[in-house]
């Protein structure tokens, strides 16, 4: 065992976790280690090695035998729970039991008590049939809306970018707007590019849309020679990774400009573009504006890219993520150096188009949850999932409101009660529609009890068919 002085606990654990150490040697000697508690035993063993200062292999393996005996005991006692509890909860339970029992003595009776309590708690936590989960979800998401701030243009981690947050963002999400107010992307990079700022910026340059406007410092219209004289900003050129020759090449690709773009022989930073002879001042200005908006490199729609340094909470390593102003998911995914599995856009519609409806559902859940979390509001994820499912279950993104879910209800009365009352009624008349009064809103309107909650229960017995009371 090496000397542990001057090392942090984390480092020691790290070292001991490496394959081939004392603990591993012991572990490899024994075949029968219960699968459920394998990691827990290993963890405990490493801790014991440190805390109890176990040095000899014999000590460790006798400790291991103890631990394995305990693990077997726990698994035997908790066996009945395995059939009832979902796998995740069961594993958590046995691990927690092991963790505690390796520190303090727990009797079999106590373990049985704990096991039964866990089963009871789980069964009690299940939803009751008939529960109006839709209404509860809607209330749970909307009720905190009153507590949200209204106009928060906040920096979300990045000081450079303003992002819509709070109530406006939530409304935008449930509205399933085509384009968000502040479109944004989080571009993750592959292993090669994510650790160094320079490499990250290299990808950033590939993504960021650069217009001629951005790199030009001045422009003059020479009507005498019918020329457009563009002076480039060398600082910006370097920043964007462009040279004058490259720009000339790119500009020359356009049909109207080919052969007309020339470098100025006297100044290395100046480009001269010939204009048609017929141009007067107004036309020349329009021409200039058009040239200025020409894309030199990057992807359409991405106006700004910022590299952000982040720390991986697991490994403690720093890495870079690109935050973009504007979105173009389909194009960014193809860019070299981008990790397409992690990169995402905040435009749910775009995600639906590029990655499909399941991804859109995930994106919706994540965005809504983030919006609420950011305001410090606790809302259970199940409510948000239900909302997202309702918005996406038909296969397309549907808005919450009259152009989406509420407007596509099969009931005339429910639609009329929501928003466009009169038109719905007239159209229903013309089409000879039938309202089968199955929903909640219709039933309230006609004064019947809606089939929800306690009203879901019906009497199957037909009392009229009973001739005489059953006796015996």
């Amino acid at each position: 065992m090496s000397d542990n002085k001057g090392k942090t606990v984390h480092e020691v654990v790290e070292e001991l976790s490496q394959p081939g150490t004392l603990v591993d040697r012991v572990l490899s000697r024994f075949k029968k280690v219960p699968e459920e508690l394998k990691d827990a035993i290993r963890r405990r063993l490493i801790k014991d090695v440190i805390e109890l200062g176990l040095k000899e292999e014999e000590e460790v393996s006798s400790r291991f035998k103890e631990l394995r005996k305990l693990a077997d005991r726990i698994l035997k006692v908790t066996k009945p729970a395995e059939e009832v509890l979902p796998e995740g909860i069961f594993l958590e339970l046995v691990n927690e039991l092991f963790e505690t029992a390796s520190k303090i003595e727990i009797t079999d009776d106590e373990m049985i008590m704990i096991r039964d309590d866990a089963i009871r708690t789980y069964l009690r936590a299940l939803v009751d049939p008939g529960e109006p989960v839709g209404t509860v979800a809607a209330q749970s998401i909307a009720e905190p809306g009153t507590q949200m701030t209204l106009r928060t243009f906040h920096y979300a981690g990045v000081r450079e970018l303003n992002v819509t947050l709070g109530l406006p963002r939530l409304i935008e999400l449930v509205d399933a707007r085509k384009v968000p107010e502040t479109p944004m992307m989080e571009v993750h990079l592959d292993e090669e590019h994510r650790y160094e700022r320079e490499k990250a910026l290299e990808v950033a340059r590939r993504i960021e849309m650069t217009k001629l406007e951005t790199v030009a410092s001045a422009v003059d219209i020479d009507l005498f020679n019918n020329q457009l004289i563009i002076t480039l900003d060398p600082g910006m050129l370097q920043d964007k990774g462009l040279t004058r020759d490259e720009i000339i090449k790119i500009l020359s690709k356009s049909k109207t400009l080919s052969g007309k773009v020339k470098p100025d022989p006297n100044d290395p930073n100046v480009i001269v573009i010939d204009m048609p002879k017929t141009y007067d001042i107004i036309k020349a200005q329009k021409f200039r504006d058009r040239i200025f908006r020409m894309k030199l490199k990057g992807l359409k729609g991405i106006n700004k890219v910022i590299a952000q340094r982040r720390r991986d909470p697991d490994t403690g390593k720093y890495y870079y993520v690109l935050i973009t102003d504007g979105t173009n998911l389909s194009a960014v995914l193809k860019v070299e150096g981008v990790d397409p599995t992690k990169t995402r856009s905040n435009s749910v519609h775009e995600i639906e188009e590029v990655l499909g409806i399941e991804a859109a559902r995930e994106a919706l859940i994540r965005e809504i949850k983030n919006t609420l979390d950011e305001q410090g509001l606790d809302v259970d994820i199940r409510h948000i999932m239900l909302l997202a499912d309702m918005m996406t279950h038909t296969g397309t993104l549907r808005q919450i409101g009259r152009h989406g879910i509420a407007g596509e209800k099969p009931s005339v009365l429910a639609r009329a009660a929501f928003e466009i009352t009169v038109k719905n009624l007239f159209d229903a008349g013309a089409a000879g529609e039938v309202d089968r009064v199955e929903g909640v809103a219709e039933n309230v309107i006609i004064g019947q009890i809606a089939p929800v909650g306690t009203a879901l229960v019906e009497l199957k017995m037909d009392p009229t068919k009973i001739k005489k009371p059953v006796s015996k």
Partner: protein
Amino acid sequence: MTDEKVIGGIKFGILSPEMIRSMSVTAIVTSEVYDENGLPVEGGVMDPRLGVIEPGQRCATCGNTLARCPGHFGHLELARPVVHIGFVKHIYDLLRATCRKCGRLKLPQEEIDRYLDLYKRLKDRWPQLAQSLSDYVKRKAIKATKCPHCGEPQYKIRLEKPTSFIEEGPLGRLWPNKIREWLERIPDDDLRLLGYDPEVARPEWMIITVLPIPPIAVRPSILLETGIRSEDDLTHKLVDIIRTNEKLRESINSGAPEVIVEDLWELLQYHVTTYIDNEVPGVPPAKRRSGMPLRTLAQRLKGKGGRFRGNLSGKRVDFSARTVISPDPNISINEVGVPRDIAMTLTVPVRVTPWNIDEVRKYILNGPGKYPGANYVIDPNGRRIDLRFIKDLKAIAEGLKPGYVVERHLIDGDIVLFNRQPSLHRMSIMAHVVKVLPGKTFRLHLAVCPPYNADFDGDEMNLHVPQNVEARAEAKTLLLVQEHILSPRYGGPIIGGIQDFISGAYLLSSKATLLTKDQVSDLLASISYEGEIPEPAILSPKRSWLGKQIFSLLLPENFNFMKEANISSGELKCSDEECFWDSYLVVKRGKLLLGVLDKAAIGAQKPESMLHYLIREYGNTFGKEFMDKAFKMFLRFIEMRGFTMSINDIVIPREAYEEIWQVYEKAKEEVRKLIEDYQNNRLEAMPGRTLEETLEIKILDVLSRARDEAGEIAVRYLNPFNNVFIMARTGARGSTLNITQMAAMLGQQSVRGQRISRGYRDRTLPHFKKGDIGPEARGFVASSFVKGLTPIEMFFHAAGGREGLVDTAVRTSQSGYMQRRLINSLLDLIVTYDGAVRSTYGELIQFRYGEDGVDPKNTSFGEAVKASRIVDKHVGWKK
């Protein structure tokens, strides 16, 4: 068994002229309404055969009185047909999609057959797809320029909004009678393919030839105090229609020139249009003499106050009360204090049985004027006896037999629904147990303020009395307050300790609290404790008890719990049992051994707290009783000890002010330097920001640091165990920021997240130089509330405050609308017996609710089973 009728469906359609005539009791023939005697004219719009509107009258048609006469329709034959404004779009589509000669859909027969077959298969299963198909067919047919059936060339048809159709061909203007003839020719099958149901909605019925005249009950006239009759808007409109119709008929009969007839025809069209909908774009709304637009048919249905949202989806009810609320910590959290006056007005129907007849007799003998009495007696024939007008109550009481129903006053123990608007979540309506109290306000326990979002600055609340056993049973099992302690929004209690309960809990459970026997007795008496008093923790020099000991009497014997307290932060931080500061809560086997009780232990809206687990593990009813007792005890203690906040708690000595002043001066200097740098172009812009923005951000940074520093100075000079700090630290009320603002400095005021910059040109107020962007000129308030604000500071503070108010006002309307849409979209979703989520229409939304079938209400912060807690619960005392 009562044969209860259930509405299984409602079919919509268009009334045919024949139908209108056959359901009419009379033709309306005259525009006269009343004769010179003020009696309604027969054949006028107020014809008595249309129904009664005055009590006591008998209906000329059905012979019933006001209560039972449903009203009867009349009809008016129009001299010339007019277009129904609601169907203009449909008429337009049909005219364009069908042949001008043969009326067939302008598609080849085989195509029609094919599409029709497809349509029929889609219709019942995928109505949305059928709709799309119809739209597609329609669009295709409109494009045809030649009829594939008869070969007739087709012309473009133009719709001149709102109601004129023009063919750009030989027919020219299509008057409604022409349109009607055209529509009559369209065969039924073609209509079906276009999504119309010719059985109940032939397109020619979209042209009005006979107008139904609604019953008088729909448009009652009211008698003003002056004795003048005031007619309903609809009646006015009907009179207009009849008058124009008369004129039109006369002109036609007298052979007036076509122009005049057409003018009158257009006028009739206008009146009929506005009669149906008075807000059609392009049509000037018909107005009353006062200039107010008339409220005609469409307006009656539309919008928030309309029939659908105002009268059908929500209704006004009897057996309800509303008054101001006030607090009462002495009642249970599931009780509501009801003023005696209200208890004597609201009633509960009691069916008389041999077992309760004596009790009910007492109520009758007391009568309506003496509490607890009764207001009405209903005999088995359904006759209602109003006890207010009965002199001999004794006779009624004696005549009482099983089978009678007595409407007795509200008494203690009755169950009622209690509500505060806006009803944003289900905890906005909960069932409470009545406690009749003197006074004029509803009394509620303070712990239920968070779910209702109530305070006592004048809030009013509503109370409803369920009138039958089913409603009461449901209220009792599902709606009682204790059933809603745990919020379904997140797994945690929404009802719990607030404000003084938390201060009290902290003070009682503090290590420094030693209680004499008298005090212990007092505390335990306040919760009617019955049982042994524990051995005192300190025996000498005087037998003294710890607050922790007394509180432990309320805990279940096997309860184990460990968690950091709210006060555990900064210097007082503790995360295990070795805690000098008493900031780590340890309960072992029902004994509070270490740690103080504060917001983290008993607070409302704190998931995974001691309170949360007490409720989760010992049940809602235990939770209710625990809170009743514990909170009462905390308050009793805080009363014993005394708890105030005075100016002395926040006043700091002169030296402190000087220190703060230095901090402020330093910050000002820093800002000055920043501005100087900026002016000399020495400031470097942050990436992605302009120079100006960078400057602002840096200045804000400096100033907020200054405020924090000032706060720290003030805190240093204040007694950290004074009542204000106790409140802030335990989470009872207020924060360190509040203390800073009271004692040290308010800090930067902001509007729209920026320093205040608007007002005069280049300056906020005329007191500053133009272009001054220093702290004072941009809304930095260096004074504290204790010291007082200068007029200029006060102005900036008000500006910041105003934004908050505006923000709240705007936000409520926006989030309210969002909530309405969300609810409307999700309200049909329920969990079915197989654990899946379906809409009541049968659509499957989720295979398993929330992917794990767990009710968020029954989770601890999202987790169905928290294994570590369950282990702790049983063996935590060994740790």
